[in-house]
């Protein structure tokens, strides 16, 4: 394994953590958006707030991490992706701004009407942001990003079957993970009604996400052959592992099990990310730029690994501390009085 491969792996670890944790935060926005009206819906939204409030910003930082590692270690690929895919990436950035501010402001809104408005903004942006990010992944996977400054087609590069499907898949996996996490959080909060509420939704989302993944096999077969070949060859064990985890999680959800669902659901999603990585290897941009060709100066790569080592030593324990404090409600959202709801 070359130094460039090691940095590529670091990038993939970041992408995995983003897909799981930020993906679930996006999915929580989806459930907030589609909860509807009524007492139960408000309770579901409160649970969403309570679950993601303390963690979403830290989870969001993985995106920054991916971007900076990408432009430090693989700047040629970064430039090619960001110039050709200017439109979906601008839309993703727009979504990030609307989502973050919508969430930050909604708890502090002066009236119920404004709170709902910010909440809707947060929810809608939570769906659009991962969708556009997914179209970017699809564009890369299907080899539609040529090297150079905006050399690819500005529109068809990301408005195609693979991109749309990958966008839908990123949304769906997040929605699924969010529902699974919300089942656990509701159970911890002692709200049996919400446990059932989110269990039903988690099962529905599992089926939809699975269906999109299966549809993906055909779409990738038609439009992203290199990745498809990798998925059914060296990536196959991971694909099967993902399917087993997904099926297992669905079974446990159906049984109403209180343990193991989260782990299996996360396993299913992590396996999808790594199956894609294995299928795409050794390419950074399939069939035009390999990891080694696109890598930075050796010294820069070594520094990147050192910084990642520091991140593992400093950030991971801090994140664990945050999650533990959150799960034990030592770090917990205070219920600020909201006008009109008291």
């Amino acid at each position, binding site marked *: 394994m070359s130094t460039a491969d090691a940095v590529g792996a670091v990038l993939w670890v970041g992408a995995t953590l983003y897909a799981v944790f930020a993906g679930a935060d996006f999915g929580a926005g989806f459930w907030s958006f589609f909860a509807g009206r009524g007492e139960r819906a408000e309770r579901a939204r409160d649970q969403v707030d309570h679950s993601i409030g303390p963690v979403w910003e830290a989870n969001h930082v993985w995106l920054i991490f991916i971007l900076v590692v990408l432009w430090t270690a693989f700047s040629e690929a970064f430039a090619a992706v960001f110039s050709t895919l200017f439109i979906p990436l601008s839309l993703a950035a727009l979504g990030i701004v609307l989502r973050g501010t919508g969430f930050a402001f909604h708890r502090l809104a002066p009236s119920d009407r404004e709170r709902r408005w910010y909440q809707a903004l947060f929810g809608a942006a939570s769906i659009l942001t991962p969708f556009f990010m997914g179209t970017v992944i699809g564009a890369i996977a299907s080899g539609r990003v040529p090297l150079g400054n905006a050399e690819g087609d500005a529109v068809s590069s990301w408005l195609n079957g693979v991109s749309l499907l990958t966008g839908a898949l990123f949304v769906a996996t997040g929605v699924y993970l969010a529902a699974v996490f919300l089942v656990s959080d509701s159970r911890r909060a002692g709200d049996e009604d919400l446990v059932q509420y989110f269990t039903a939704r988690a099962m529905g989302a599992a089926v939809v996400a699975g269906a999109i993944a299966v549809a993906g096999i055909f779409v990738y077969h038609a439009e992203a052959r290199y990745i498809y070949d990798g998925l059914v060859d060296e990536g196959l064990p991971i694909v099967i592992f993902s399917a087993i985890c997904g099926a297992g999680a669905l079974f446990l959800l159906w049984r109403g099990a209180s343990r193991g669902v989260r782990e299996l659901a996360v396993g299913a999603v992590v396996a999808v990310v790594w199956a894609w990585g294995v299928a795409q290897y050794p390419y950074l941009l399939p069939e035009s730029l390999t990891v080694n060709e696109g890598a930075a100066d050796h010294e820069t790569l070594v520094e990147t690994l050192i910084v990642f080592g520091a991140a593992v030593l400093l950030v991971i324990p801090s994140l664990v501390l945050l999650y533990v404090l959150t799960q034990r409600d030592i770090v917990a959202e*205070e219920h600020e009085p909201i006008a009109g709801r008291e």
Partner: protein
Amino acid sequence: MPDAGSIANLLPDLLADSSQLLPARSQMAFTLGFHIILACFGVGFPAMMLIANYIGLRKQDSVALELAQRWSKVAAVLFAVGAVTGTVISFEFGLLWPEFTDRFGEVFGILFTIEGIFFFLEAIFLTIYIYGWKRMSGWAHFWSGVPVAICGIGGAFSVVAVNSWMNQPGGFTLGSDGKVTDVDPIDVMFNGAVSYEVPHMILAAYLAVSFMVASVYAVGMLRGRRDRHHRLGLLIPLTVGCILAPIQFFVGDTAAREIAKDQPIKFAAMECVEKTHRDVTEYIGGICTDDGVKGAIPIPGLDSFLVGFSTDTKVIGLESVPPDERPPANTLLHLSFDYMVGIGSALIALGAWFGFVWWRKRDIPQTKWFLRAVAVSGVATILAVEAGWIVTEVGRQPWIVYEIMRTEDAVTGANGIWVTFVIALALYAALGAAAIFVLRTMARRWREGEAQSVPYGPLDDEPASTPGGSE
């Protein structure tokens, strides 16, 4: 041989190319100018809230604790907005300047990966601090906030070091093909401009936050709210600001001298120096024209003196380089620089006034004029930060990497930047208005004495784990 048809096609292409530069620069300037305000709060505000928290714990002062708690809630809102506007900046490295990042990402990128760690830790510990008021013990909670202030400074170092590097690029070798080799991360990190630009910006962030926070309480006092809450809310940030203002003046003065040496053309534009000569007049204010500065207050010889402590010092003029290597908008640069120096001086004067009265009476000056001065100092300081970024960024033009890469060669080939720029304008205008509105709503609720939970309260007085507790 190109035929007539391909030449006809070439022309619109060229126009399309060069037309991206202006919107790209506008969007970058606008989004960075917006983000820098929030970034200042990210860097400087945690220290302010920790000082209040420390006083509160040390002296069992419930007013100080209440201030710290409220400030942490404001910090939470500003940090959330800053996190997303900062993300926009990182997208723009690719969206607007892909050629820059493509060529030099491997050089300056390492600083951003370090910044990523600081940002991560800042986000994590700020969350613990903000959400930890009720259920953590006092000192444990205080210490959970300390990494936030440290990481704010560390993050500012990493990011501003990148800007310093753009001003004084080093730590790499350019091959004959223009490719970067032999990257030395330490030399990149401690490039020629770091030693003055980084402390200048960190101090600027602290000053901006100090005077912004103080100005809020000064306005409250002018409206007749002279309770201890307002007095302490004014006193803490104002003390910090007044101590740092003279230090900033010294750092800024050093920076200007270094710039005269390292980036003489930027300095010439700041001071409207056309021809290289000695005994250069310092112009305060005015408009820069081809034949001298109009409408300024001239002080003969001072510019030379400021650069080299002697009126005999030679100052390099704009005409020493070809016109296409000079920055645009000299008057803007000149006035921005003068404004920054003017505000720096005014803040020192304000601090002297405050210090003198405090020394004599152990009290905040009671006159309305003092409170009025503090009330405007916040916005004035923020504008000085903006002026400083105009000086460093516009002053470096036409270079994105000083004397190595021109900005026009860095810009994206993608179309539609005008569209994203207009969207960014509208979006950030709405965002700014909403943020101010939300903060004012919070302040109004606090004033109306809305029930607020007591810091470090008993564990069982609120079932925080029950969702829907607000029903």
